[in-house]
C-alpha cells in the first residue's frame, strides 16, 4: 500500500464540448505523485495544465460538457466515473486547493476566521467553537503575525501575500493529503513570492502532504518541486526529477523554454532567445508531434506519427520525441 503513489493519473484525456465547439485540452497524459512529494506541472497558457487537474474533480465552468477517459486514482480510489456528490467528499477535504488570485478565492464580505472555520465544520464535522480554535491554529501555522486580530478582519484589509496565506490556511483546514496549487505565486511580487514558496514547501514537508504545483515559471519549479511534467499543447513532452530535467533537458521544447530565460551573463542589448512560431490552437487532436512546426530537430515523420513517452537512460526521465528517442536507440 505504501508503494502505491497517492495520486496516479494514467492516460488521462479530457474532451470539452460546448454548444459551438469541441476541444481536447488534455490528450493522454500520465503522471503520479507520492505522499510527501511535490510534482510541478509546467506549461504555457492553453497547454492543459489546469484543466488536467481540475476536470477530474468536477471543477469546470458550467455550460461545458466534460468527457473524461483514462484513469485518475487517488488514495486507492478511482475518481473518473464518480458522481458529483462522491467527488464533493474529496474536494476541499482530502484534496485541498490553492488558486492563483487570492482576492477572488476569498469571500469579500465574510471575516477571515469564519471562512477558515467553515471548512473545518464542513469537512471535519467540528462544532463552530472548536472550528474557530482550529482556524486560529491554522493562521499561526501559515506564519501570520497577530493571528487573533487577523481572524476578525476582512480580505480587503489584507495585503496580497497575507491573503494568499489565508487561502493556504483554508486549503489546509480539511487536513488534505494532496494539495493542488494553481499558480500560487503568479499574482505576487518576487519578494513575497519567495516567502510563499518557502511556506508551501515547509508545510508540505511538515504535514507530509503530496503537492501538485501548477506553474509557468521554471524558477518556481527549481526551488520547490521534486519532479516535473512539461506540458505542450495538451500533451506531456517530458517528465522526470527536477534536478535532471532542468539541468539536462532533452525534449526540444523543454530545451527551448529553459534557453529562453534571460541569464545574468547575457550581454546587455543582445537579442532575446526564444522559440520561433506560436503554440497551436486547441481543437482537434494533432496527428503527429504538436511541437513539430516549431522544432528545429523535426523530420518528416514527426508530422505523421505521434511520439510516445519513452523512458531514457536511467529510466527516471521520459521524453516524447521520436528524434531524441531515436538517437538514444542508435547510441
Amino acid at each position, binding site marked *: 500500500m505504501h508503494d502505491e503513489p497517492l495520486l496516479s493519473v494514467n492516460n488521462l484525456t479530457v474532451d470539452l464540448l460546448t454548444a459551438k465547439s469541441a476541444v481536447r485540452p488534455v490528450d493522454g497524459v500520465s503522471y503520479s505523485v507520492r505522499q510527501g512529494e511535490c510534482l510541478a506541472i509546467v506549461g504555457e497558457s492553453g497547454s492543459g495544465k489546469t484543466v488536467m487537474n481540475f476536470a477530474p474533480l468536477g471543477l469546470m465552468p458550467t455550460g461545458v460538457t466534460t468527457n473524461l477517459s483514462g484513469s485518475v486514482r487517488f488514495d486507492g480510489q478511482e475518481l473518473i466515473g464518480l458522481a458529483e456528490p462522491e467527488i464533493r467528499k474529496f474536494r476541499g477535504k482530502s484534496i485541498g486547493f490553492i488558486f492563483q488570485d487570492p482576492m477572488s478565492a476569498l469571500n469579500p464580505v465574510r471575516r477571515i476566521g469564519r471562512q477558515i472555520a467553515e471548512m473545518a465544520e464542513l469537512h471535519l464535522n467540528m462544532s463552530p467553537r472548536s472550528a474557530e480554535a482550529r482556524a486560529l491554529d491554522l493562521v499561526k501555522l501559515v506564519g501570520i503575525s497577530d493571528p487573533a486580530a487577523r481572524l476578525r478582519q476582512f480580505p480587503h484589509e489584507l495585503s496580497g501575500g497575507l491573503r494568499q496565506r489565508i487561502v493556504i490556511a483554508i486549503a489546509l483546514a480539511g487536513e488534505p493529503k494532496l494539495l493542488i496549487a494553481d499558480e500560487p505565486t503568479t499574482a505576487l511580487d*518576487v519578494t513575497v513570492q519567495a516567502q510563499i514558496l518557502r511556506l508551501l514547501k515547509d508545510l508540505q514537508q511538515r504535514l507530509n502532504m503530496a503537492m501538485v504545483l501548477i506553474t509557468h515559471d521554471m524558477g518556481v519549479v527549481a526551488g520547490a518541486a521534486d519532479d516535473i511534467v512539461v506540458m505542450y499543447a495538451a500533451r506531456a513532452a517530458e517528465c522526470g526529477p527536477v534536478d535532471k530535467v532542468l539541468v539536462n533537458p532533452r525534449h526540444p521544447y523543454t530545451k527551448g523554454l529553459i534557453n529562453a530565460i534571460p541569464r545574468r551573463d547575457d550581454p546587455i542589448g543582445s537579442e532575446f532567445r526564444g522559440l520561433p512560431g506560436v*503554440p497551436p490552437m486547441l481543437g482537434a487532436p494533432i496527428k503527429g508531434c504538436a511541437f513539430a512546426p516549431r522544432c528545429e530537430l523535426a523530420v518528416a515523420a514527426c508530422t505523421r506519427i505521434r511520439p510516445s513517452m519513452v523512458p531514457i537512460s536511467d529510466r527516471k526521465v521520459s521524453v516524447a520525441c521520436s528524434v531524441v528517442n531515436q538517437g538514444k536507440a542508435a547510441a
Partner: protein
Amino acid sequence: MTHAPVLKVENLQTRFKSVQRGKYVHAVDDVSLELYPGEIVGLVGESGCGKSTLGRTIVGLEKASGGRVLLDGVDLSGLSGAALRNSRRALQYVFQDPYSSLNERQTVGEALDEALLIGGLRSQHERNRRTKELLDQVGLTHAIKDRHTRELSGGQRQRVAIARSLAVNPRVLICDEPVSALDLSIRAQVMNLFLRLQRELGVACLFIAHDLSLVRQAASRVYVMYLGKIVEHGPSQELYDRPSHPYSQMLLASVPVVDPRVEKLRSAPLMVGEVPSPTSPPSGCRFRTRCPLAFDECARSTPPSYGLSPDHNAACVFAADLYGGKRSALVRQGAG
C-alpha cells in the same frame, strides 16, 4: 548620448485622495528621471510602488500634483489645446494587456487606420501605405489587416498595439509591462521587436516591468522604485553587479534561478514583510521597516541620493559602503 534628453521628468508628484478624509496617497513622490533618444531605460519595483502611476502621469493619463514633464525641453504642463495634443503625440503608451487595449470589433486595418487618421493623415491612400509599413515594422503579414483583433493570439495583439502606438511617429514609448501577459516562448519575440524598433527608428523606451532579468538584458540604464520614490538608478550592468541600495540588493537576490542545484541551497527568504501602505509611509527612509541595516537615523530624515559613479546614484546613507562591498543587506535575518 551626450546630447539633450528627449524626456525629462523633474520632481514629479502624483497624489490621490484617500478614502480616509483629508488623507492622500502619494503614489509618485518627487521623482526625477531622464530618457535620451534611442535608449531603453528600465523602471522596476514591486506592485504598488507607483511605477505604473509614474508612467501614466508622464503621458498625462493621471494629473500631476507637482513637478514637470519636459519633452524636448518643452514643459507639457504649460501647454494646452492643439499644442499639447501635438506634443503628446510624440509620447505614446503601450499597455500591459493586449486583450483589453484593443477594440475587439475592429479589424487590424481599422485599428491602425483610426490611429493614423487621428495622427492627422488625411489621404486614404497614404494611410493604406502607412498601415502596410507599420505591419512590416512590427513583423506582421499584410494579410492580417482584414482579421478582427479578437481572432489574434496574445503576441499578435501586442504587436498590433505596438504598431498603433508607432502610427504617429512617437519619440518616446512608455511600455507598461508589455510582455508580462505573454507566454514565455512568445515573450522573446516581442522583446526583440522592442530592441529592433529602438535600433531602427531610434524610439526611446521607458520600460516598466517587474521582471528584473528581462529588464537587465533590454535596458541600458535602470531606475529602481520603492513606495513612490526612486531609490537607486544606474547603468544596468553596474546596478545588477553592484546594487548599492539595500532594497535593490534584496530585490535582485529574490529572483529565483532555474537551476535546482542553486535553489536547493537557498536560505530563508531575505525580504520579510510587504510594502507598507502608501497612505502613511514610514518616516525618513521609506524602506527602513524592511531594511536589515536600518538604524535610528533612518527614521529621522529622508536619505539624499549619493553619487557612486557617473550616473549611478543610491538613496541610502550606506550607499558608498554597499557600493564598495564593505556592507551588505544580504545577511540572514533572525526568524521574523
